[in-house]
């Protein structure tokens, strides 16, 4: 979809949809939202809907950063502690590590 061909009201509607959909544990929608509408929100000359679009983009960016922090923390925690967790750590495995603990 080429944003240049879409009118402003539709752009605002899409940005809003992506923002709210991201609350359903879909942080990548927020990332997409921030990247895709970045130019619209900050670089383009002013138009009516731009303020709203800007607020949605900022909130999406904040959401994405929070999620990134959560994911990084969990990955570090799991990778370092899984072997210690024994049976519980194994139950979280999807692919069994061959030949090592």
């Amino acid at each position, binding site marked *: 979809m080429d944003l240049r061909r879409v009118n402003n009201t539709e752009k605002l509607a899409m940005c809003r949809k992506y923002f709210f959909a991201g609350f359903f544990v879909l942080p990548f929608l927020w990332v997409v939202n921030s990247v895709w509408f970045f130019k619209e929100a900050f670089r383009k000359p002013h138009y009516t809907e731009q303020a709203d679009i800007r607020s949605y983009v900022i909130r999406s960016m904040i959401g994405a950063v929070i999620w990134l922090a959560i994911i990084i923390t969990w990955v570090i925690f799991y990778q370092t502690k899984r072997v210690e967790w*024994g*049976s519980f750590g*194994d*139950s979280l495995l999807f692919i*069994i*590590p*061959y*030949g090592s603990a």
Partner: protein
Amino acid sequence: MAALRQRCSLWLLTILMFCLYWNPAGSVRTKTKIYIDLKTQSACFRTFNGTHQMGCASSQSGNVGIVYYIQKSEDFDWILNDGPHAPYIVVMDTKDFIGDNVRRLYKRSDRVTGIMVISLPPKNDNSSSWPQDGFSISDSCPNDQAGLYRDSKVYGGCKKTKWNLPGSGLIREDLGIPVFALSDESDVDKILKKCFFKFNERDNGSSRGYPLCAAELKIQMFGAVDTEVCLRRSNQAFSLLPGSIICDPMGDKNNHVTMMNTPQNETRANDSVIIVGARMDSTALFTLEYRSSDTCVSGFVTLLAAMEALWRVKNMIRNTAGAKDIMFAFFHGESYDYIGSSSMVYSMQQGTFPQDLNSDRDDLHLHNIDLQHIHQFVELNQVGYRDKGSLWMHTDPDNRRAKQAQIKNMIDGLKAATQGLNVSLQEADQTQPLPPASSQRFLMERADIPVVVVTDHQAEYTNKFYNSRLDLAEFINATDYPPGLTEAEKYDFVTTQAEMISELATALARYLYEASTGVAPDPNVKDTLTANTSTVTHMLYCFLVSPNCELLKEIVPHYNSESLETALLPYPFYVGIHGDQSQISALIYNLMARFTGELVDLDESHCKTDDHDKRYSYLYVQGNKVGSGKDRQGWCIKSLVQDSDAYSPAFQIDDYDWKSGKYSTWSESRWAKDSLKVRLFLVPSPHLQLLTLLSGLVVLLLSMIITYLIAKRSGEIFQQQQPSEQQPTSG
């Protein structure tokens, strides 16, 4: 013009296709020019018990190191401390491959990433090819924690007698690096002549420069940690996916046969069954290198020969009033914490021994045998050697105190049975405990069964190669053929060991006759109760030299005949995993049927167990040759031979406590078909490698710059041809 161009390109294409299919030069893959592959698949693999992981494994892509062949003891220090090209892959001779040396190497995994042992049969009868003090992968007190004395303060830990002095304990250690055995001449040639002596050998103490010959050893094991974790992971993944089961419990089948056919609706009195037992298995470090002569073959062949002799008078025994039942039992998996005997004891306690059938129907099956029915237990351990010219009878001191009279009867009876025979049985020291033996598991559950264990050692093992690939037939004189015999002649030649075993088997048969009937055999019966030396030497040949022998061909079904004929080595004596029955236990089952059963006139499709009398098992085998061609008679054998699972109760009990050590918890890791590999290649110096990388990067950079410049000035370099519609194309 265009048509001509078209035809030209068509011709070119045809010629190209032709060249691709007919390639006189023979295309070669680049990797065959870089790597030399070794044939060996004899790797030490990973095993587990309830608490530890043991054995060998490499990283998933293989361990790489510079090859170094140890020729003198200073080489160890050089590899561990001075060699500049660490890590190394060490190649050593069999005589150096002993516990201490292996430990020195694998504990420095930063300097040693793999080991290979040269394991060729010696060219001359040179005893310096073997480790001087023997070699055994078991520890010096085998199966101590699984046996009768594990909690004993007086006898535990071999305080009185260290049984297995050459024991290295490698069976219980996590070597962590790949270890291979090289038993193929061409492999040894490649690694020594083409690799080590050509590139890596030190000249006058200083190391050679690059390029050096390196080896990559791959032993890719799937499982890790211990049996509990490994099984849990195997069960949790989708078992339909390949590669999701990563380890298997060890196990096999036990074989047993009773003299009487007591059905379940008659009574079996307490203390009415004499058990005679031996083990069928041994173990070694490397897969495909399982040899055994004294460790298990001597024992079970003696038992089979005694069985064959005893069953000649089966009607006399069965018709004697009050005769005790005799059960011959063969256990598998004894090297791994008594898998077979603990399994049999457990099934006795569950009431499922010898047949696991429910008795709510009218059909007959064998009356169960429980621990209280056992009158005495005679076990044959290693009986191939002689210690001071004699075999020795061992008893447990506490057991002896409890059953003074019975044990004395047993010992006197056994000694008396050797009268007139060329075998000597003496009593071992009465304060000495039992050596590692299957009967220990029975004593653990019922301490007042009188037990006598017959072995070829008075105190420490005479066998210097217990549980090792070096437990060779030559050492027990089982292959002392005069030179120049053909295979068929070797098969019939009665070896020294065959005679020794025959004498012992005869004594055992005579003892059992008297122990069961209570009456000494009269001279006619005594003569009948003589082991057949021809059968004994045939069995030794089939199990120690080659399975391609007449005795085995007679007792296998026709679909197994090809396997016998194409076998290059004797069948392995390792227990293997449960569910994958070993050839040894299957062949022993069939031999037992042949020796104790009767031929019935049924054809193959009718030769199966009767619906109403399940005591008897039916077996259809090839039989002996008819005429001079390939035809065989075909026999249907009806016998009382049974088999039962040799499967540790640890895997059968729900919520078994894996750390308790009550039962064997041994399991084996799985691996893929291409998981075991050794290959050799040259490595250049690190400087050369860096130079190659840098020049590659420079070329990349230059080509990017040149392409950019050309693209920018493409208008000047290439004349643009304007397409013109008016010009007719020239034909």
